[in-house]
């Protein structure tokens, strides 16, 4: 898959015509892969809901918050009270890492992928 | 023919405002008897009837589509019906190639004074569609047969 870039902005997607697997085809997600890149609605900073209001937070704060909450729920209700949903927008490697995190760290097999929804 | 099984075709008629609609008016006004299968839609010119309208009519379950306009050279927009005359044969070819009998689409010219012709065209076209039977697209939801989509739901 190729992204068309014009003046530093991603403007379109093209399939790779000589790719041995896709052979020049893309699915609808592939064809529109460029659309979220410059989207105004895109989340660029972590937000934490404080007293019902989403407030900007630093990465450190957000990550320790998530980790703390996950650990709390795991310890309180057991690992199977957690579930993880991964994304088609992640790479293979990212999905693999998320699988490892879920099974080895969180201790549950409850992991699935959005493509199976 | 298939009049036995009681099939009455539904035909969408696109009638141009200046000639054919007036022609239809005249046919009614002079109490001409003609088939009641055509549902008329008044358009300003037969040239404004896009292939999209025609295919949408078939998709919605029409058994036939009739397009009528002013005679060549008499268009109230000078050359609007030239467009119709060129476009309809192309649409017919495409319909035929995709598998919808091109006979289900008809183009004819009816002027405001031709009430009798309008009655004749409508009756003849209705008879033709009656003999062709219901449209093969009838009963499909977005192209799929209704029962099928219900079964899978």
């Amino acid at each position, binding site marked *: 898959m190729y992204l068309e870039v014009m003046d530093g902005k991603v403007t379109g997607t093209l399939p790779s015509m000589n790719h041995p697997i896709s052979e020049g085809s893309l699915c609808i997600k592939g064809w529109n892969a460029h659309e979220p890149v410059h989207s105004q609605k895109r989340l660029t900073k972590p937000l934490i809901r404080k007293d019902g209001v989403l407030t900007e937070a630093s990465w450190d704060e957000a990550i320790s918050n998530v980790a703390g909450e996950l650990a709390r729920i795991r310890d309180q209700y057991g690992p199977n009270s957690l579930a993880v949903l991964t994304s088609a927008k992640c790479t293979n490697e990212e999905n693999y890492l998320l699988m490892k995190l879920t099974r080895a760290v969180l201790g549950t097999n409850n992991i699935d992928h959005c493509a199976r929804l | 023919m298939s009049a036995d099984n009681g099939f009455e075709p539904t035909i969408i008629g696109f009638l141009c405002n200046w000639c054919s609609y007036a022609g239809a008016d005249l046919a009614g006004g002079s109490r001409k008897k003609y088939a009641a299968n055509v549902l008329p839609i008044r358009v300003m010119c037969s040239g404004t009837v896009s*292939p999209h309208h025609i295919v949408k009519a078939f998709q919605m379950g029409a058994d036939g589509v009739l397009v009528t306009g002013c005679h060549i050279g008499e268009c109230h927009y000078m050359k609007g019906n030239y467009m119709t005359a060129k476009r309809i044969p192309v649409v017919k070819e*495409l319909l035929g190639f995709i598998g919808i009998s091109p006979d289900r689409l008809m183009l004819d010219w009816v002027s405001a004074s031709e009430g009798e012709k309008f009655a004749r065209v409508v009756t003849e076209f209705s008879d033709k569609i009656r003999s062709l039977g219901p449209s093969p697209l009838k009963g499909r939801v977005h192209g799929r047969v209704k029962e099928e989509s219900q079964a899978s739901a």
Partner: protein
Amino acid sequence: MEELKKKVKQALEEGKIHGFLGLKADEGDISPFFMTKDNIAELEKLTAPDGRYSLGKILSRIAAQNPGKAIGVMVRGCDERAIIELTKASQLGTASTVQFGVACTPQTAEKCNCPQPYPSTIDFGEKAKSVNHGELLTKLEQMSVEDRLAYWMAQFDKCIKCYGCRNICPVCYCQECTLEDKNLVPGGIVPPATPVFHFIKAMHMADRCIDCGLCEATCPSNIPLRTIYRHMRKVMQELFDYVPGRAADDKSPLGTLEEGGRLIH
């Protein structure tokens, strides 16, 4: 190829062209690229591979960014025809093109089933024989109407509505696409309204299709789209003696109010 690179380089340096659009090979991956005098080293990667992209479409986007400028473009037979159609539809704006013709190899011509695998002027390669396999078209034309409907419905039911055929098509340039009209093609349903979706595309292709075959090549469901469009090309030729992509001063009979073809009186 070296000679072609030299030609392009010279044109760039002399200022005859502002930039150049072609195909490059990067570790075996073929992709389109656009370069100007500032990154002339890119030119080394220029290639005329087996793979194709719709350079005409990319050119129209570049032309919109560079009004009034001359843009060099590597053209094959299909790209040349696409540029003719885009010019007719005023899609290149005020930008002009300098074309560097590349003839396809017999293998590429065979793979693309291309009746005209070379542009009008050739700067690189040799004219390959034209290829024209039309077995499916002939078979379909001889079928009964009922069988054809069954055939196409089965094909159209495979459609996953990826819009790939439209996205890749070098002569699909509309900003607002009829295929996204909710009244004609209701959203959220796959396969999309059959046969309306494909009927609309075919109708729009009738006076535009340059028979490059990219739609069929990119279709993930392998719908033989090109066969429909080839039939429409044939119809246009028979009715109006009109062939899209033949000459820039041709006018589409479906786009003009003139008399033409077999008028029904």
